[in-house]
Each structure stands twice: as C-alpha cells, then as structure tokens.
C-alpha cells in the first residue's frame, strides 16, 4: 500500500471527476497530437509525391495550380501545351529527363494519365500483377484504384471525359487492364496509367487518312511535363528561360510545396492553439479538483501524518495523483489523435486526396506526454504544497 496505490485509491473513489479530468487532458493532447500527426503525414505525403521532380512545366496560369494538378493531381490543370514545345524543351542540355503527362479523362473519379513508364519508375512503382502497357488502350491501375474499382487483369472499362465523376463517357474507346501496381503510398496509387498515345487516340478517334493524320499530329498536346535537371545549375536559368521565352510556365515544386505547406500551417497553428487552450482548461480543472480535495481530505491527510507520513510524502501523494491523471490523459489523447487522423485519412481517401497513414506511430509523439505532465505538475504544485504544510494538530482538534 504505497503512495502510488494510495493516490490511485483516491482517483478510484471519485470516478466521475477522474474521468472528466482524464477526458479534458486527452482532448487537449489529442488535438495537439492530431495536428502533429496530420502535419507530419501531409508533409511526408507532399515530399514523397514531389520527390525527384525538379520542375513542373505546363500551360501558363497559376504556378500553385500547375503544381497541384501536375504533381499531386489535386487540382485541374492550367491547360495543355503543344507537343512540339515539349519536345523542344526535352532537348535542352540542362535537362536529364522529361516525363510527359496527358490528363483529360477519368474513371470513377480516378484520373487517367497518359505517360511513359518513367512515371511509374519515378515513384518506384512495381507491378503487383500483370505487365506495363505495350500498346495503346492498355491500362495499369494504381493500387488504390484497383482496390476501389475491383477491376482485375483483363477487365475492360471506358474513361469519362473530364476529371470529375459523371462526365460524358468515351463509349467507343475501351481500355483493358494489363497490370496492377503495388501500393507505393504516393499519388501513383490513385491514378490509372496509360500511354500517351491512348489519350490522343481516345480524343482523335481512329484516323487513317494520312493527310488528316499529319495535321492532327502537328496539333498534338500534352498537359504537364515533369522535369529532372541534368545539373543543379539548371535551377538558376531554366525556369526563368521557360517563363520568359516560351508560351509555357515552369514551377519549382520545392518552392511551391513550401508555400502550400505554409498555408496549411496557418490552419494547423489554429488547431494547435485550440489544443493548448483545452490543455490549459484541463490543468485548471485539475487544479480545482485537487484544491477541492484538500478540504475534503484535510482529515485524511492529518490521519496519514499521525501514522508517520512526512510532509514530503503528502506532497508526493498529491503529485502522483495528478501525474496518474496526466498519464491516462496522454495515452487516451494519443489514441484520440490517431482516431481523428484516421477519420481525416478516410475522408481524404474518399476525396481522392493525399495519402495519410493515420496509424503510423512515431517516437516523436511521446513528447506529447511532456505538456500533459507539465500541465498536471503546474496544477498540483500549490495543492501539494498546501497539503504538505497543513496544520495537523488544528485539523484534528477541529473535529475533536
């Protein structure tokens, strides 16, 4: 029957008050933890998706929109660019590799992206089953797409025009699933990959007349180019050159992603501040509970002293009580944070937005125990001191 057990016995004796304080602490820690988890996961997600891409090139418009559309597939593209301009750019010696993306259609809300095998390679996408496309109208599904649409190898589907669900369907152009990718935790998971020719074919129809074909070929377009530099020096001149000398626009993902993250950060700060306020409320509630307990337990404390408890024992008992609450609150709070993150993750998955791994526990989260303990310690400081210095003789005499 040590001090910890004694402290626990008092917590157990008033379950409602204990529960209230644990919940308040958990809510504070949960809110702060939620921001920590989601911020980290979104940051990781953005970083993963933008990894290896030095520059996004597309039609003129908003640089942010270009990046959101071209890398994260979250926004509609700014427009298309002529294939010829793209091919010209690819010949620039400052550029190591260009991955073209043609974005026009979608299948049940998942974007159909016309591209080259380099694109899957960029995200280290490997096949779970089947093969990559070898011809037009062959499709490779990202892991999420395959899971949600339940399409297997050999399944056939048609794309609908536009990127939102329910656009007019391209009924006469049927894609066949030839491969399914393993999950990568990147944007690749929620895309349908086809070759660039497929996208052209779907919109041009089967043109056989050579003259017409020449005209059409000259007008062919792509949507976005993902560029990898040959040398870091390219960062200095290439974006400026593209923006100034061509009818295309170049956006640096590193810069735009930082800007995006900063915008999200404002929201995160607000939620985090809310968490701190809740935590402060929890500390106040705990303080009131302990202070109230002082009066309620004055005689108990006196009895303990007559049994030989030293002042420090009494103070430690009160502190332990607060720390126990903090420990329970932290554990529950962390759990709450992950549950909230899981809710957000499933919502974002529904929206076909960024991938968040809500149940990924990081060591960093253990630091959240610190604010809980600090709050509890602050709340318990004065009551503990008062308890330790209460006048035993007077308390006993008052009852006598």
């Amino acid at each position, binding site marked *: 029957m040590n001090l910890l057990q*004694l402290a626990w016995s008092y917590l157990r004796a008033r379950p409602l008050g204990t529960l209230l304080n644990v919940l308040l602490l958990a809510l504070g820690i949960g809110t702060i933890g939620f921001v920590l988890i989601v911020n980290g996961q979104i940051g990781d997600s953005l970083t993963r998706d933008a990894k290896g891409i030095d520059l996004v090139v597309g039609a003129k418009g908003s640089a942010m929109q270009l990046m959101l559309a071209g890398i994260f597939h979250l926004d509609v593209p700014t427009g298309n660019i002529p294939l010829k301009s793209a091919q010209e750019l690819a010949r620039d010696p400052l550029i190591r590799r260009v991955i073209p993306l043609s974005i026009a259609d979608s299948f049940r809300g998942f974007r159909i992206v016309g591209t080259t095998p380099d694109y899957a390679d960029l995200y280290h996408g490997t096949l779970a089953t089947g093969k990559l496309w070898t011809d037009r109208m062959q499709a490779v599904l990202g892991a999420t797409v395959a899971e949600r649409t339940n399409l297997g190898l050999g399944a056939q589907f048609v794309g609908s025009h536009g990127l939102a669900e329910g656009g007019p369907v391209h009924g006469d152009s049927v894609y066949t699933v030839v491969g399914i990718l393993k999950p990568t935790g990147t944007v690749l998971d929620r895309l349908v990959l086809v070759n660039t020719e497929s996208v052209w074919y779907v919109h041009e129809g089967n043109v056989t007349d050579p003259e017409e074909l020449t005209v059409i070929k000259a007008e062919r377009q792509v949507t976005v180019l993902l560029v990898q530099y040959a040398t870091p020096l390219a960062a200095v001149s290439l974006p400026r050159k593209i923006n100034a000398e061509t009818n295309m626009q170049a956006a640096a993902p590193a810069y735009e992603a930082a800007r995006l993250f900063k915008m999200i950060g404002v929201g995160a700060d607000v939620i985090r501040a809310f968490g701190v306020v809740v935590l402060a409320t929890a500390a106040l509630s705990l303080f009131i509970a302990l202070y109230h307990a002082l009066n309620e337990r004055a005689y108990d404390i006196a009895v*303990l002293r007559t*049994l030989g408890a030293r002042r420090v024992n009494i103070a430690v008992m009160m502190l332990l009580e607060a720390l126990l609450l903090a420990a329970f609150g932290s554990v529950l709070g962390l759990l709450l944070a992950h549950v909230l993150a899981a809710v957000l993750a499933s919502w974002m998955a529904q929206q076909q937005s960024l991938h968040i791994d809500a149940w990924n526990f990081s060591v960093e989260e253990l630091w959240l125990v610190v604010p809980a303990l600090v709050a509890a310690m602050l709340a318990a400081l004065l009551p503990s001191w008062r308890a330790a210095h209460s006048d035993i003789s007077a308390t*006993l005499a008052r009852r006598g």
Partner: protein
Amino acid sequence: MIRIEKLRFGYNAGATVLHLDEFVVDAAEDVLVVGPSGCGKTTLLHLIAGLLLPTSGRIEVDGQNLAALPGPARDRFRGQHIGIVLQQFHLLPTLTALQNLLVAQTIAGLPVDPPGAQAMLAALGVADRADAFPHQLSVGQQQRVAIARALVNAPRLVLADEPTSNLDDEAAAAVADLLLYATQRRGVSLVIATHDTRLKAKVSRQLALARPHAETLA
C-alpha cells in the same frame, strides 16, 4: 515510557494553554487524562505525539526527546513508536480495512506485512471484514479496525483522543475494554484523553487538567 518536565505550551508567546510540571507514564501503564473541555487534553496528546512542539520544557517518549528530532525524523518516530486512536476512529475512506493497516506500515517506513496485518485484524475480531471499505463497516467494526491500525506497528505507546465520545454506554464500555485489553496484553502504555466520566471506573490512574487561565492569572 513518557517523561514530561516543566512543560509549557502556548500558541502565541503570551498565553499559556497548557502547563504541566511533571508527568511520567511507565511502560505498560494506563493513564486517563481528564478535565473539562478546553483544558488542553487534546493538546497534551498532540505534544506527546510530536504533532505540536512545547514552548518550553521537555517531553521524552521512550527515551527520545521529540523536540530534538528534525521534522521528518519526528514523523517517522511517531509512525514507528506511537499508535494513535482518533475520535470517530477516522479510517481512510478509500482504502479497505486491511489496506488501512498496510498503509500504516508503509507510511511508517516499515516493511509491508499483510499476514501480520491480517493477524492484527483477527486479534480484534474483524478478520472477516478485511476487504470491506470503512463505509461498509458498522461503527463497532470501525473502532476495532482503528485500534488494530494503532497497534499494527507494535508501538510501545498508544494515545487515544476521546475514543468514547458520542457512543452509548454499552458501546463506550466495549471500546474502552477493547483498548485496555489489547494494550495490556501487549504491554503497551495507554494514554486516553477524555471528558467521559464513564471511563473513570476502568482506569485507576488519572491526570486531571484544569483550565489554564486561572493559573495564568495567579
């Protein structure tokens, strides 16, 4: 067991609440401290227990001058050598009867000895109530547990403050008999502070305290 010399105690520098020139309690001796309320009976018990320190004079318990010990050591001495039975037998409400005895062992810095504590409950006839909480015990059972708690650390001295107040004749007699029997059997000195005249028949040695202001005026 207790040796008091030229004891004076007052809360402020001026007013003396208690004045006792000499008072000695031998080992295994029972003493009743009597007097009208406000005469300092409880104060005297608190002084002997080291909960209060004398303004002047000397109190020795088992050869130890309590005032000479630093606070924490005095608390520990009290826990290990003095058993205290409080008015209304205040048991810690969140602990079971047995746990009330165990916490007395822990808090006095002694090893926790559940069989010993259980045996003490048995000696006072409440072995079967070991796992009951205080609010589940009858008043009589609470008294027995409180006496067991006072004796569980094998003290040489037990102090009891008004143990029979608010009890009917039968209950008062039962508690007094129990206290006297339990302490005498163990050779423990017992000092009972009371204004209860019913106890006078049971304890022959009595120390009568008077209200101090008469003396202060003199």
